[in-house]
């Protein structure tokens, strides 16, 4: 199995506060990996460090076997010929003043299976609302748009930050269905979630992050079976969701 993403000993800071203490993780081709942990454990920072939106001070990141440490963000996103890394940030971050379709035309076109047409067949709701301003979409539609936008880079790896946040369960299901389809098309996914039950049902492997360090790593099914551990590791949200 080829490793799509390898992060090794990532140390990241916000100003003087030390957020990540030597985080190492990997995602293999076609694999879905979830990164769990309480609020403030460093999950989002890990994704930001991989994208170099928060440049890590120490550690190396390899993507598709290539050392990308120090690459600018736009180059990591686009990759070097063999597919890039799609990033769907927490809180979606649309361009509010652009329409749905205009948002989708912002990423530079890349060859691959995802084009505007295939995106609209994956998310029929977005096709219906293609001329609406992104700022006027519902939360679920915004999440779909954020995912769609990332897919247009035709990434082989997708980083998803809390896709279920603030969404009604029905909408979460709709979003997750789309994610399932991406997975079946061979896109590897690194999923950050607070809703551990949801994430574990979906993932192949899981990491648990606490105070900026990985404290658990293993098959998702194994972790999901141990509900006590889920509770203690991933925080209160997990038990509530169950």
């Amino acid at each position, binding site marked *: 199995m080829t490793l799509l993403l390898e992060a090794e000993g990532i140390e990241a800071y916000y100003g003087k506060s030390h957020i990540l203490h030597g985080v190492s993780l990997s995602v293999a081709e076609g694999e879905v990996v979830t990164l769990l942990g309480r609020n403030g454990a460093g999950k989002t920072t890990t994704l930001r460090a991989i994208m170099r*939106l928060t440049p890590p001070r120490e550690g190396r990141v390899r993507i598709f076997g290539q050392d990308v440490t120090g690459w600018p*963000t736009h180059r990591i996103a686009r990759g070097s010929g063999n597919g*890039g890394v799609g990033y769907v940030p927490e809180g979606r971050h649309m361009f*509010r003043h*652009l*329409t749905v379709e*205009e948002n989708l035309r*912002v990423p530079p076109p890349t060859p691959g299976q995802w084009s505007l047409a295939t995106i609209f067949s994956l998310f029929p709701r977005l096709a219906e609302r293609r001329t609406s301003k992104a700022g006027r979409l519902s939360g679920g539609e915004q999440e779909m748009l954020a995912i769609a*936008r*990332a897919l247009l880079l035709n990434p082989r790896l997708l980083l998803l930050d809390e896709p279920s946040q603030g969404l009604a369960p029905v909408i979460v299901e709709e979003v997750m269905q789309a994610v399932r389809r991406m997975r079946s098309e061979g896109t590897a996914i690194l999923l950050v979630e607070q809703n551990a039950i949801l994430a574990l049902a979906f993932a192949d492997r899981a990491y648990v992050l606490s105070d900026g360090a990985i404290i658990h790593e293993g098959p998702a099914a194994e972790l999901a079976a141990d509900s006590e551990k889920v509770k203690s590791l991933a925080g209160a949200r997990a038990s509530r969701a169950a």
Partner: protein
Amino acid sequence: MSVETEARPRSRAGLALPGDEKLRFAIFAVLLLAAPFWLPLVGSYTDLGTRVLVYALAAMGLNLLLGFTGGLSFGHAAYFGLGAYGTGLMLRYVGPNMWLAVLAGVLLGGVAATLLGPLVMKRRGIYFAMITIAFGQMFYFIAVRWNNFTGGEDGLTGFQREPLALPGGAIHLTTVPFYYFVLAFFAVGAFVLWWVLNSPLGHAMVGARENARRLEFLGVRVERLTWIAFAISGFVTALAGSMSALLNNFTSPLDLYWQLSGYFVIICVLGGMRNFWGPFLGAAIYVLMQDYASSVTKNWLSVIGLMFILVVLFFPRGLLGVLARRRSA
């Protein structure tokens, strides 16, 4: 996702042209085409219309940067002035060819913006504004000091509009034909801006205004994007400068001075910088004020200043922004 929001699908950026937007544009176009006929009827004159077109084009060029890409340039007079000097110098020293004269102005201003762009775009916010002023003033001092070539402080004279060589013969650019000459170039400049803003490149520019970091993880090279915006903006403003030199048969270092850059910014804000045609309305108001209020008081600028303050305080979207709001509400 509510019915209420569905009722207002009009693009806030004012770019697309659906339905009644087309009609409004057609009326606008007819008014511009017929201006030499109706301006005298309302007690005005054709050259005033030409001046509106010149300032509108300069401000619309700036607005690609200011309103759509989100860069406050306080140095756009530099590209306007270089456009004017390029045209004037060409006519004075090289030859009486109007096409070459316009080309020289556009190239001089546009290439300067293109070369300075990477230096300027490295900075953001207030530092960006300061650097644009600094580069702008550089050209002002060159024009003032290089006396025997540019005419120095007194300005560049000794050139005038020449007959325009067309396939069917030469046209003498008296007042009314010259209006259409400027209108044609205005249309070209406006079309370029409109086309850019409706392309994925333009969408990315609006994206840069909203959040540049966000563009980076979508694979867009933000520095190159803003550079392109700066260059296009410079070319369009230089075209306006070229027209200005031909309109006045004169240009002076004041066309390069940072005060003029400030007027361009005021024109954009007054009319509405989030609106494609906002700067046009701003320019019309500015030119009318300059013409009418200045015959009443020599402090006509204080009238503009007062309007500017009121607009910033009460209508931050500018006058056209308010009108667009009313219509869609």
